[in-house]
């Protein structure tokens, strides 16, 4: 009897010990993120200022800023949005609502899973060979945006599928029962109900795209750009221009990489400041995504 009690106590101790170990290992990430933020702030907060955001890169670290980098990031992301979202959502709808169970569907599915696992730098190589060499788009904003578009396409497709899969079949049946066609069902029921999940996926994909460095380096983005792309708004008819598509560019992570790689201590302060800005953008976008997911989950109950 005593033996059994000891045994139980022993097992319980292990159980508690493991629970603590589990909690700690879950918190490892949290500790790392905290250390990372503190480190960045201690190194880079002194450089953060209005002039840092409105200055071009410079040989003098105190004068250098990230104006051309964040404008570049913004424009590249704009191209990415228009390239990836329509195709991604359409592909997701096809696979969930239309696709028959056959080998083509299976093959497409396997292919998307594989694409999601292809290292981002391989997309960069694709872009050099395809967009720069064959299509002659140059080392431009358009090339950068399309590259990132390809990169986040699998994420958009998977988010769309997951979100559509959560809609119960009875919704579709109810729609068909009123005489709606397949597309009408998708357009008026499936898409609106799955929009929350799709939006969440898109924002998370874009937050990935904004921090992506490797493929953009391969594409040949410059690190020292002391001018801005052509303005998308013009004063003559038709009041907008797409000349900026073809302009050379740099993005915030590349600017940061460039500063990290320099031996001078002063440039590493700039790198930390650029890192803070990247982190703030990433956290903000992820926060929005989590909020949207939460809101939609609360609103829709089947």
């Amino acid at each position, binding site marked *: 009897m005593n033996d059994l009690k000891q045994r139980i106590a022993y097992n319980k101790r292990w159980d508690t010990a*493991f629970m603590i170990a589990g909690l700690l*290992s879950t918190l490892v990430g949290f500790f790392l993120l905290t250390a990372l933020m503190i480190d960045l702030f201690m190194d880079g907060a002194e450089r953060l200022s209005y002039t840092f955001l409105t200055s071009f890169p410079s040989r003098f670290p105190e004068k250098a800023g990230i104006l051309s980098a964040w404008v570049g990031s913004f424009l590249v992301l704009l191209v990415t949005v228009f390239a990836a979202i329509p195709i991604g959502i359409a592909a997701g709808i096809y696979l969930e609502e239309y696709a028959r169970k056959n080998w083509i569907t299976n093959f*497409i599915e396997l292919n998307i899973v594989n694409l999601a696992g292809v290292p981002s730098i391989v997309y960069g*190589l694709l872009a050099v060979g395809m967009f720069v060499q064959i299509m002659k788009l140059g080392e431009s904003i358009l090339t950068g945006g399309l590259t990132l578009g390809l990169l986040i396409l699998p994420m958009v497709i998977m988010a769309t599928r997951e979100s559509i899969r959560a809609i119960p079949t009875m919704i579709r049946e109810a729609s068909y029962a009123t005489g709606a066609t397949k597309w009408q069902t998708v357009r008026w029921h499936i898409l609106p109900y799955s929009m929350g999940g799709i939006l969440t996926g898109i924002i998370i994909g874009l937050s990935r795209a904004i921090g992506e460095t490797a493929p953009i380096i391969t594409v040949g983005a410059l690190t020292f750009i002391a001018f801005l792309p052509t303005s998308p708004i013009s004063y003559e008819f038709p009041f907008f221009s797409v000349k900026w598509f073809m302009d050379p560019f740099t993005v915030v992570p590349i600017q940061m990489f460039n500063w990290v*790689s320099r031996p001078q201590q002063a440039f590493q302060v700039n790198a930390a400041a650029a890192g803070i800005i990247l982190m703030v953008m990433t956290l903000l976008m992820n926060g929005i995504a989590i909020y949207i997911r939460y809101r939609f989950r609360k609103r829709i109950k089947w």
Partner: protein
Amino acid sequence: MAQFQRKTSQKIREGLIEGLLFVSALFSVVITLSILGILAYESYGFFAEVSFWEFITERTWTPLFSNPKFGILPLVMGTLLTTVIAVTVALPLGLVTAIYLSEYAPHRAREILKPVLELLAAVPTVVYGYFALLFLTPILQMFIPDLSGFNALSPGIIMGIMIIPYVSSVSEDAMAAVPMQIREGSYAMGATKFQTAFKVLIPAAFSGIAAAFIIGISRAIGETMVVAIAAGGQPNFTVNPLEPVQTLTAYIVAVSLGDVPFGTIEYKTIFAAGITLFFMTLGFNILGFWLRKRIREAY
């Protein structure tokens, strides 16, 4: 009659839309084929000038020297070394995290901890690189005086923490797929949660957990910026984590940063490195997909 016409036009419209959606789905296949095509085309040019045998057996990689040597092994070694370090960190932590979140954590704690964990995968990798080079390496140097400023260890550890969310979320899905009766059966025998997790859940969810590990490995192989910043730039045929190494990915970045003219052999080397990388990750991705499909069918 009018109604009949309307029906036909509606049918055409439906067909057109389905076609359009199908083309969008097929576009992903076009991307894969283009990747393969471009990599194969440029590496074909590479292998026209360098023998395949030299590529896989030579132990030096100095394509930019006047007497160039084209042995991919040092880059593959660098990649494997950083990957092994990352995986050593990520697998145990990821698995324990998954067990904690799925079996122990109260609902509310889960709701908060999971998004925080997912943030780890969202931080830009260039920031991790900065952190590995300027924060972790100096700290590690306090304990390991032999550690050089650029090394495989520090970026490996950071990469490992970075891929925890990939490992833990897939393992968690796998364990959630184990039916409740199996757990209840174990509890009814008087087993603790700890015993249930290790003796019942892990064996039952094994293929899913294996898939999680493989996805983690594939991520680590393809990771670029952390190693490009913190691991150094010399191709180094070594298994010593304290020395600087260059990975396949870091090599591509290093060459792309310079101004290498298109069409030269130096330019083609990045595609040769790229195709090596592509096939390494492709193998792991397909294996992972297959294992994950098996968990869905298991119960």
